[in-house]
């Protein structure tokens, strides 16, 4: 592993920074305050992603045959880091380009690629992921939403919960269960969210408005051609998708920006002189850097096409530690910001709370790391 950025990588980072400086409006902090799933940010994402597409940066990491530019894994990641630090102006569309697209490239058929790629590439669609259910959170395999085979397709009945971006989504990457048994029974359906029988209800929560939803399916017909891959292949596809999802979001970049911002504020009114404050800021900074380097190692694995190991599990835990350290620092030393004075600090606080829960309880990462990284035995399964 070689440390340091090449001149090309530095130039690429600067290009993204310049673009952000130019394209983000003066009131961007107000737009971004409720997070990527908010109405304001989703609306802005359609403007911003179009600009990115015009610049050839929206799907530049995709292969040339799909309209991309074969951008390197590292350049893709540098862009993600800069965008996330800026509050993710791609809004919910980061998901489209990060993993929905790549999953479709690998497992989709030609008709599906022809249908779904152009709107993703032009930045005009929002996908949501229909994974979690009331009884299937971290334990995704126990999902209950049914996909019954009918003539010409599937009839879907059930409910999803905590679905990010569903309120404005045009499409859903939906997991459902057929009549077969076990993990092989799960299918992935590419669902049109305007299908009759789909009902979306926002869940009010302590994180940004419009962020999470319940989605109900009542006799929703999904044509057979919307099945992704083969029946029985879903688990393989999800595993591939989640590898891209888990460290796809460089949260530490946003935390680092908030930490630097906090230090500026504390300096301005003389509070940064306090050695206790400085010590705790240093600790938070160290955790941000640790998270960054651990994530870089996973990116390096991906860039060199090395097999993915449990290091990704450790990296996600490190990201959460960094988020929490920055949040704890600001909460302790700048409590006035949290009680209404600083909307960005409030937004960071809310997202830090969700960081260890969204995309699966973080404790699961520890279990996986203990098993895969340390060869420790799994927890015994007790009385069902």
């Amino acid at each position, binding site marked *: 592993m070689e440390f340091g950025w090449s001149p090309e990588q530095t130039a690429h980072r600067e290009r993204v920074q310049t673009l952000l400086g130019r394209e983000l409006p003066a009131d961007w902090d107000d737009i971004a305050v409720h997070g990527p799933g908010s109405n304001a940010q989703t609306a802005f994402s359609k403007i911003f992603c179009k600009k990115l597409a015009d610049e050839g940066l929206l799907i530049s990491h995709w292969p040339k045959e799909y309209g991309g530019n074969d951008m390197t894994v590292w350049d893709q990641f540098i862009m993600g880091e800069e965008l996330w630090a800026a509050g993710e102006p791609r809004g919910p569309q980061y998901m489209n380009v990060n993993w929905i697209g790549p999953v479709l490239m690998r497992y989709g058929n030609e008709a599906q690629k022809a249908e779904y790629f152009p709107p993703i590439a032009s930045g005009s669609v929002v996908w949501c992921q229909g994974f*979690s259910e009331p*009884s*299937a*959170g*971290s*334990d995704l395999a*126990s999902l209950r939403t049914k996909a019954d085979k009918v003539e010409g397709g599937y009839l879907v009945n059930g409910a999803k*919960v*905590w679905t990010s971006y569903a309120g404005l989504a045009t499409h859903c990457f939906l997991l459902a269960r057929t009549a077969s048994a076990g993990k092989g029974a799960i299918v992935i359906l590419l669902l049109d969210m305007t299908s009759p029988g789909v009902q979306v209800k926002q*869940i*009010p*929560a*302590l*994180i940004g408005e419009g962020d*999470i939803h319940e989605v109900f399916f009542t006799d929703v017909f999904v044509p057979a051609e919307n099945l992704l891959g083969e029946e029985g292949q879903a688990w393989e596809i999800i595993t591939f998708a989640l590898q891209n999802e888990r460290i796809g979001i460089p949260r530490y970049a946003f935390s680092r920006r908030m930490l630097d911002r906090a230090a500026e504020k504390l300096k301005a*009114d*003389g*509070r940064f*002189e*306090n050695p*206790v404050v400085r010590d705790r800021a240093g600790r938070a900074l160290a955790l941000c850097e640790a998270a960054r380097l651990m994530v870089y190692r996973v990116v390096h694995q991906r860039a060199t096409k090395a097999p993915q190991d449990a290091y990704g599990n450790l990296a996600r835990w490190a990201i959460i530690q960094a988020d929490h350290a920055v949040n704890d620092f600001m*909460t*302790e*030393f700048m*409590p*006035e910001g*949290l*009680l*209404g*004075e600083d909307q960005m600090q*409030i937004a960071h606080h*809310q997202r830090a*709370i*969700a960081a*260890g*829960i*969204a995309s699966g*309880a*973080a*404790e*699961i990462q*520890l*279990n996986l790391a203990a098993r895969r990284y340390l060869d420790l035995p799994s*927890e015994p*399964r*007790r*009385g*069902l």
Partner: protein
Amino acid sequence: MSIFHASAEQLELVESFVRPLEELFPVARLHRAEHTDYDNWVTAAEFGWFGISLPEEAGGIGLSVVEEALLFAQFGRHLISPGFMAASLAAKTASLSGNDELAQKILGGEIPVAIARQTAAGITLVDAENAKLCLVISAEGTKLFPVEAIQQRALLDRTQWSIALESAALPGNPIAQASEEDIGASINLLIAAQLTGIAAATLEMAVAYAQIRQQFGVAIGSFQAIKHYCTDMVMNVQAAKDMLSFSAVAMAGNQPDHRFQVASALVVATRAAFFNTGKNIQIHGGMGFSAECDAHLFLKRAHVLETLAGGLKASRAALRAENSIFGKDAAFTG
């Protein structure tokens, strides 16, 4: 009275308030935008809750700060408006200022009181929409003002925190005041008590959920990752409860180290409340950060109470100052 802890009689007395608290202040009320605890202000005054530790001749109940601390721990469990603490502290402030008439009116529930913390810029005002008096806490002690004397009131939030938070300017000319030396321990004790109650309530919530929520075919409480959190939480609660009870007894007996003990109780309770409210959200998963679940209400109230205490940093500095070997922190310049 036992030397170190609350007696059986003291515990029993507070138990007698558990049922009315359940009936008057179910936590679910906080999900209704229009709720206000000031609806039950007079009822609370009739129970004597504002003057537990004041002598009967001053209009109080004539018990000690031990009973008062135990009651306020129950208030914490029910997330009762910090205005109730304001009433108790305002009556003490009036009494210390020699204004017994004002103290009696506050204790009788005639004049609703709200609480505020002095900040660098002015004051942060909590749940003051129904109050006539405002008790401002600062590092120097307490000051009592008529609400109409408060200028530049600006609403910061009402929905997100399930209680109205306002910023305002600090008025001049208080109608009563008390020095930190006279009232500081009372402030710290009541806040520590409420934070202890919050830590206990969230422990119970988390354990109850860990016992029923199933993933991978078993209750999540069977996973070490979850049960170890719960064990840390119960340890926090026991430490906070014991420290609260011990420091209240020390204060009631006017022990020379009672300020140190109370300052310790506040730091221990603040940490317990933050750890437990945070882990309760984590253990509840996605449900934990939904508005529908009670978990976020406890976290937010813990933040409000911590702010009223001047922040965890200030609480730790106060604790250091009470240790003669550490002494007061040197002031930072620049």
